[in-house]
């Protein structure tokens, strides 16, 4: 895909992002969720796809953002928007700090060891939040009601998440074109060689994870308000849903690509909304079949499969943008 076509596609998506909440106003809540899922897939891919470090613990940053935001709203007494903005910023800052601290410890591990170490993070965080009275313990927290009719709230969150998704996409597109992006790919392809060439791999890995944590902190911060209820395991540190989905969506679209996570999240969300709600009780089975199907037939995701299927276009893409 040439650079011009990528730009056209991005413009088309931007137009859709702006127009959709008005074109189909009844679907604003789902549109907001779609962009939130796109962000989750994008941020997971920074380490999972580009750097080759599969993290199953990114939900930690999402949940931290959610709690921080609602606690700030509860305790500062500011008006709704100011408290939300401050809360999201606080959540992102805490999430990023955690990523630096935890990253400097567990990012030394490689491959499966890293994956397993991260698996515990979300679970541990859920247990801590579930036992901590300041955070409402097992009863969870209720964020303040949005100070406008619900359709306005949905519009607000649809645009907020769209803006955040677009910014994340643009930032990552720019980032992957720099030496930083190349360094991440070098770590993925052969970490020992990268180190031998003088790359400070630890620093790159921690920075990559911190970027993901920062954005996820913002995403979680708004999500608590959008869902209207913060539960330690079911909405904040929801490893079994959002935590698995972010990995699944990135892999579905094609991990290690710029567009893959976006595509994967879109396909996943539309499938879920169109089909799952009508399967009454069988949707988890459907999800299982989809996962098996992806692993068996599209191990490289939709974009990876398309590349193998039409290698000529892939060549063109390589020349056009350096990396797709």
């Amino acid at each position, binding site marked *: 895909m040439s650079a011009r076509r990528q730009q056209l596609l991005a413009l088309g998506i931007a137009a859709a992002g702006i127009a959709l909440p008005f074109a189909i106003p*009844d679907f604003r809540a789902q549109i907001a969720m779609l962009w939130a899922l796109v962000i989750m897939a994008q941020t997971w891919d920074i380490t999972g796809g580009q750097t080759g470090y599969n993290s199953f613990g990114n939900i930690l940053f999402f949940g931290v953002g959610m709690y921080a935001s609602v606690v700030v709203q509860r305790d500062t007494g500011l008006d709704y928007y100011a408290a939300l903005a401050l809360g999201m910023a606080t959540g992102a800052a805490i999430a990023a700090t955690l990523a630096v601290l935890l990253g400097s410890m567990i990012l030394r591990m490689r491959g499966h060891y890293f994956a397993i170490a991260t698996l515990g993070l979300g679970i541990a965080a859920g*247990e801590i939040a579930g*036992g901590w009275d300041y955070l409402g313990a097992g009863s969870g927290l*209720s964020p303040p009601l949005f100070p406008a*009719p619900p359709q306005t709230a949905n519009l607000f969150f649809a645009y907020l998440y769209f803006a955040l998704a677009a910014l994340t996409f643009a930032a990552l597109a720019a980032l992957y074109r720099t030496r930083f992006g190349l360094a991440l790919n070098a770590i993925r392809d052969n970490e020992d060689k990268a180190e031998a060439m003088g790359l400070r791999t630890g620093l790159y890995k921690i920075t990559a994870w911190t970027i993901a944590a920062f954005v996820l902190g913002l995403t979680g911060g708004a999500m608590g308000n959008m869902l*209207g209820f913060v539960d330690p395991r079911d909405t904040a540190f929801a490893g079994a*849903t959002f935590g698995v989905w972010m990995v699944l969506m990135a892999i579905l679209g094609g991990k290690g690509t710029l567009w893959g996570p976006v595509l994967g999240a879109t396909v996943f969300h539309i499938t879920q909304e169109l089909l799952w709600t009508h399967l*009454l009780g069988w949707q988890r089975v459907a999800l299982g079949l989809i996962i098996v199907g992806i692993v068996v037939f599209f191990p490289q995701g939709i974009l990876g499969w398309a590349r193998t299927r039409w290698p000529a276009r892939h060549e063109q893409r390589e020349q056009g943008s350096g990396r797709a």
Partner: protein
Amino acid sequence: MWKGWAGAVGAAALGASVLAAGHAVAKVEGDTVYLGAAVSLTGKYTTAGEHTQRGYDLAVKAINDAGGITVGGETYRLEVIYYDDESTPARGAQLAERLINQDGVAFMLGPYSSGLTKAIAPVTEQYGVPMVEANGASLQLFNKGYRYLFAVLSTTEQYLASAVALAAELAEREGRDLATLKLAGAFENDPFSQDIRAGVLEDAAKFGIQVVVDDQLPPELNDMAATLAKVKAVRPDILVVSGHSKGAALAIRQVQEMRVDVPMLAITHCDSADVIGKFGAASEYTLCASQWAPTLSYRDDVFGSAADFAVTFEAAYGYVPPYQAAESAAAVLVFADAFERAGTFARDAVRDALAATEMQTFYGNVRFDETGKNIAKPMVLYQIQDGAYVVVAPTRWAASEVRHPTPPWSER
């Protein structure tokens, strides 16, 4: 290449139109009025979620079979649009939006559990959609000033209050000083059970009973051996366990396996966990908080008496209805009554009719206070006696004397 993009855009447009078509279902279509419900058909609340759905279905069928409801001189049938909330609040809130916005539902039935109700109530409240719920008992639901939320069930602080009161009464009868009475509790770490805990601790304090164990159980309830080991060591007079259906089954199983001798075991959710069917004699003597019992003397025109409801339910589903099914059915009856009194399907008229509800159902009397909770129906306390649930408290409904204390395992 461009053809490919055209195809993608076409597919997206098609997808959007399919999504948009969903809105065609109006809240009242022909002679059918639609109620919406997100229930737990998968996930940790599957068992109770199914009881909830079956309660709704049975009431809807009974009302429709009896000719439906008469609103403004015309007769209407009821129908429920269901989604599976997967026992997660995040999904529940999204599905409530979907039911209201895309399916055009103007009246909601509640989900199962306080957590899910907490997630859905803000949504229905903001849209001004009346919701009658039957399975969210947490007291915290009723201090938020919600106007569109109505609950037919008794709230959490009442669940095990009668058990604590009963223990105190029995101790007094034996001439024991209440300050020597020891209570051990284990509560799942979820909104409902934590509320139960608050109620139990408050009651214990009221009677001056010492609380010697106060444990939290994780939501992935598979083992409570650590708590029971402590219980064995401190030998309390009462053991209270609350953790939905899984917690009930776990408590009975492990108390038996570990031979924990405790004079009184009080739990919630016995009948929905079918502890008699699963554990037989090992479940004897257990006290169970219940919202309802088939032996109570309430009745209504749709189902007849409480016992009649139990017969109808068992004929349809092959098991005795747990109270979760009964209260869910009652929620539908309350809606039907409000529709008929309102004489219209306008949301606010129905909301006002609901607020003015004063009726008896097979499940109990229903009258809402200004916060929306039902204040006309007490909880009852069952004891498992000779393989059956027998009401032992409060005295007014008691069918039998409580058997106390529970003999040690060596004599059972």
